[in-house]
């Protein structure tokens, strides 16, 4: 199977079920997509000091993100050059030397091979340590504190890659003067399903909320009716951005904030008038959800912000790694409420998120049959009805539409065709 492009029909706006369950497709994605895209690997606040580190993945490759002794953020493959064992098996910390547990090859935070046991009597001093440093991810760049890495030495800049999506990411990441920090810890959970199902939903599927999250509507925590929004085009809209990125903006009731939260949200709104354009500032603190292609998503709601990666683990398994962001200036009681709201709603136990996982697992598990595989999925909603607007970038359509969702598969098709 090499003609992956045929799996996405650009004219009919359909996608083959095989895109979500085929081992060959998955292996090609690792090669064609994840080695050529900007992948979110962490947040600057998680590695503030020299020799701080954290561990994560890009696609199937284990990654070690460090701040080297000179303060520069670097990313390496977390894999010893000798036999491949991960040189760091902790989530985060601070160390001058990563020593492989297997035979003891040791690397510093700039990836340089420092120590090799028995270099004299076993290697006869013939090993050139300069050649055997950790494999470096050549590009690491920050967008408002979020760190992205790209394996492709000839890649476009992160800024160009994000394009018009940066305008929308700024609604969250640049809404306050002093920016955001990550909560300590990380939500990590396993889901059955294909990684793209998480990415596409956050990148532009508002349509599912009325049905899949109906339980939330029934208990009064979701909008009545069918989530089409009261202010289409202006406050309730979805966006198809370049390069497969997508955004959802939705003006929903923010629960019952405390006085302290209300005061803090007012502070953010004031600061946003200085850090953002007027059109952007008007949208601050609505419900905001987006995906940066391929598999990083963001959701900001009730003052909390989850940034997560849908790590692919084979065609039918996802490991979600979700960090929580909060304004550096948030007072302790606001931070507490923010963290609690994120756990309650969007986390492994989240009362929204639980139901998403079940849908994605079901899709992956039932679509392997030869007959179902012949019939593609429908992504036709709203095509031809999107508009460009003067006050905001991208192709806009009010809820609901699949122009943004399908944009992910257009980009996927382009990258899988190379």
């Amino acid at each position: 199977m090499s003609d992956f492009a045929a799996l996405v029909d650009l004219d009919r706006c359909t996608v083959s079920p095989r895109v979500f369950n085929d081992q060959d497709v998955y292996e090609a994605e690792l090669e064609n997509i994840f080695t050529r895209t900007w992948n979110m690997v962490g947040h600057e606040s998680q590695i503030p000091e020299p020799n701080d580190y954290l561990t994560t993945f890009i696609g199937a490759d284990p990654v070690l993100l460090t701040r080297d002794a000179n303060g520069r953020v670097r990313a390496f493959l977390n894999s010893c050059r000798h036999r491949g064992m991960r040189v760091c098996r902790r989530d985060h910390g601070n160390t001058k030397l990563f020593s492989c547990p297997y035979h003891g090859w040791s690397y510093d935070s700039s990836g340089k091979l420092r120590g090799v046991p028995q270099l004299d009597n076993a290697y006869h001093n013939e090993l050139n340590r300069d050649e055997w440093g950790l494999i470096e991810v050549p590009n690491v760049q920050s967008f408002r504190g979020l760190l992205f890495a790209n394996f492709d030495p000839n890649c476009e800049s992160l800024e160009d890659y994000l394009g018009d999506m940066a305008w929308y990411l700024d609604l969250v990441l640049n809404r306050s003067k002093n920016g955001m920090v990550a909560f300590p810890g990380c939500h990590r959970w396993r889901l059955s399903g294909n990684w793209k199902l998480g990415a596409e939903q956050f990148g532009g599927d508002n349509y599912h909320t009325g049905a899949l999250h109906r339980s939330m509507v029934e208990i009064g925590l979701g909008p009545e009716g069918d989530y089409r929004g009261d202010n289409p085009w202006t406050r309730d809209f979805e966006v198809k951005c370049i390069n497969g990125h997508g955004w959802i903006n939705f003006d929903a009731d923010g629960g019952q904030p405390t006085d302290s939260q209300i005061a803090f949200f007012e502070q953010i709104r004031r600061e946003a008038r200085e850090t953002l354009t007027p059109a952007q500032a008007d949208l601050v603190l609505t419900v905001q959800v987006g995906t940066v292609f391929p598999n990083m998503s963001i959701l900001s709601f009730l003052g909390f912000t989850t940034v997560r990666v849908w790590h692919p683990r084979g065609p039918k398994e996802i490991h979600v790694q979700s960090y929580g962001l909060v304004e550096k200036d948030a007072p302790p009681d606001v931070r507490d409420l923010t963290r609690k709201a994120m756990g309650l709603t969007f986390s492994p136990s989240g009362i929204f998120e639980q139901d998403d996982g079940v849908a994605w697992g079901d899709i992956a598990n039932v679509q392997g049959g030869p007959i179902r595989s012949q019939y593609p999925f429908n992504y036709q909603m709203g095509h031809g009805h999107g508009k460009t607007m003067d006050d905001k970038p991208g192709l806009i359509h009010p809820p609901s539409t699949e122009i943004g969702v399908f944009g992910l598969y257009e980009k996927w098709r382009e990258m899988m065709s190379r």
Partner: protein
Amino acid sequence: MARDDESVSIDLRHEFETVLIDEYWLLDNSQFEDWLDLMAEDIRYWAPVRENLDRDEENFFQADLLTHFDESKAEMMLRVARLRTGFAHAEEPPSRRRHFVSNIKILDAPDPNQAKVASNFIIFRSRPGHEEHLFVGSRRDHWVRLNNNWRLQERLIIFDHDIIENITVFV
């Protein structure tokens, strides 16, 4: 420990064996509202995320550490109300859940109306299809006796999972 203290402790341990088994009987039988009645009005029900760190570095009490749960009775009631809507699709059709509690240990009983109790749990969940999961861990409870009934005032849930499954169960 004086002989008297020891017998108090053994009696209390037996008492809490009953309390905790009765609690899990309610969850086994989906009697969630009756289960909520065991919670004190000011309960804190919380479960920090786990981290892979150097030995003894993990600190559940670290400020701002992310949590799977950190809830008052109001949020716990919300979870139950959601399950009762019939549209909480992660539990429709309902999974088969079986709750096991063991290794009950009285950590402290400063007065006859308070007890700090540790216990281990295993929860088995079977969903439609061959989807079977275990949730394993330990709990640190603070129970208070109110009107002659033990009520849970704080439960720290320590999941023993690194990458956990979608948590639709109560612990």
